[in-house]
């Protein structure tokens, strides 16, 4: 039998969902374990202490010196590093809190110092080079399953290149932007969630970040303005999961 690949899961600051989501693959986790052995995953196992990983998954934002040290450590010891989830790829909601770290600490903890060495939250991709980035708050677990299988088979995983709208059309959901005038970010958001929010009859909140390339945020901005949403509201919505300018 071929030797299994060493897999690591590192959690920086986040809600825990991106690490947890791996366990939500349920029985197919055992299929993955045909190819991988888990060397580091502190939410799931008490074992650790390897010094080389074939594949490392990093979730969360860099929000403290501890996170930064852990990230560098992981990068230095991994062959293939995946930024997993919108915190790691774009910063997600916790990086959208405005103001400097000192000001925020003072407002919430009532303390002028920074004894725990907190940093302003930033995505992993701002600090290190990554081999693959898979956004989503949370990412779709089928996607990471496929990515890990691809890597195990020696195939470079494929990045999706279409917006949420495509998946919405494939599911034949009614367009909530046109029919219900809801502020839906589907046209400019990176697909892969199978249009989860539109399935509930609600607008896409943009949790997978902007689709790079041909999308047109300026025209989305105009559409929402024509629907009567005010400028501040639209810009805040655009900036909630990723810091992009319309």
């Amino acid at each position: 039998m071929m030797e299994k690949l060493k897999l690591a899961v590192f959690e920086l600051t986040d809600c825990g969902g991106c690490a947890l989501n791996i366990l939500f693959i349920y029985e197919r986790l055992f299929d993955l374990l045909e190819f991988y052995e888990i060397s580091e995953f502190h939410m799931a196992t008490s074992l650790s202490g390897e010094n080389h990983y074939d594949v490392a998954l990093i979730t969360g934002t860099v929000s403290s010196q501890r996170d930064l040290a852990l990230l560098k450590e992981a990068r230095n010891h991994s062959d293939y590093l995946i930024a997993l989830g919108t915190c790691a790829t774009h910063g997600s909601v916790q990086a959208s809190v405005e103001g400097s770290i000192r000001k925020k600490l003072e407002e919430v903890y009532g303390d002028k110092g920074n004894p725990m060495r907190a940093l302003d939250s930033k995505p992993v991709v701002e600090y290190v080079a990554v081999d693959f980035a898979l956004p989503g708050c949370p990412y779709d677990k089928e996607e990471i399953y496929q990515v890990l299988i691809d890597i195990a088979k020696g195939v470079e995983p494929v990045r999706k290149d279409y917006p949420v709208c495509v998946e919405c059309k494939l599911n034949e959901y009614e367009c909530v932007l046109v029919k219900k005038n809801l502020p839906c970010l589907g046209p400019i958001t990176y697909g892969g969630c199978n249009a989860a929010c539109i399935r509930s009859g609600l607008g896409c909140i943009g949790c997978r970040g902007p689709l790079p390339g041909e999308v047109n945020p300026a025209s989305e901005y105009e559409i929402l303005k024509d629907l009567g949403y005010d400028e501040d509201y639209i810009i805040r919505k655009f900036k909630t999961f990723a810091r992009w300018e319309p």
Partner: protein
Amino acid sequence: MIIELREFTRVEGNGKAEIVVEDGEVKNVRLKIVEGPRFFELLTLGRHYYDVPDLEARICAICYLSHSVASVMAIERAFGVDVPEEIQLLRELGLIGELLESHALHLYLLVAPDIFGYPDAIRMATKHGELVREGLAIKAFGNRLREIIGGREIHGINVKPGGFGRYPTVEELELFERESGALLKLARRAVRLFASLEPYGEKAEHFVATDGYLWGDKLVSNEEGTFHYTERIEERSLVYSFAKQSHYNGEPFLVGALARLLLKADSLTPMAKRLFEEHREKLATGYVSYNNLAQAIELVYSLERANEIAKTLLDKGLEGENIPIAVREGEGIGYVEAPRGVLIHHYRIDGSGNVFYSNIITPTALNHAMMELSLLREAKRGYGELDECSLIQRLEETVRAFDPCISCSVHIVKL
């Protein structure tokens, strides 16, 4: 001398502990929450109320729906909106799904390996595969409930002020009824397993919960009638932790499954009540390790209750109507029982529907002082008696008994 414990494993989020030893004796323990701060209260400021529950859901993955529901309830109270029984029952069904998903994860995947002497559930599965699969089956059912009621397994946006984006279908309700009945047998087995755990940690004396089983208008304790959190619970910042510490009337206290059972056993379903009575004596000692047993009994409660709710809704038929919201200036508190205890969301909203004050206290922040006290007790008991490896193992188990949700605990409150 300070013994530094490396970061806890098999808990959600990043935390560790320091044991302070002087003259060969354990003097103090510091529970350090090193997960970075997340500032959710600041994130919600200036936001339109309609978008707030979707943001708050991101506080936690294990209990996102508790955050959505607490947030929605606080908003509805601020606007003076009452929702009908149907919407309440569906929210309860979602919270039950969360309880099942979270307790099953904790008990089968995180705690059970301690009982059988494995570093994790995956390695435990080689010999105890049946048990792991049973846990995963309960967890998957809980997540199915979250997916249908909440909109997604993690961070769904279906729970809205005044109702839901989408209501479940008759087929989905029938599935809930069928599956909850079928899984009950597995949950009863879990109660037997977790009843075998020995007592450890501190004996809690003060217990706090919401006045209803999974949510309430106010809080209750074992010492007094109902109260608002502002009257009795005080939070303090610590220099060594990103999570604040809470005290009830100046004392450490316990929230979570054990507190719920001891304070609200009257509202349990028939089989859960019988199991509670069977183990009442043990549970009433207050040892925090029995929180695991209490969680196993709650698996039984949740499955019985899910079955009841599905039946009720199928008999009555769903209206599927949302209650319209009229925006006005107001203040509201949402009290929900997240799987690991009391969760508080408190907002003030202005006349245009934007949040201008926001305060969130999570169960792990409420339990923080009791966790520290339990570690101190176990460190005192084990230091010099156990070898370092066994001592650390026991301290980890003690923290694990609380089923801490560290990610949740770090977005703290504005005083």
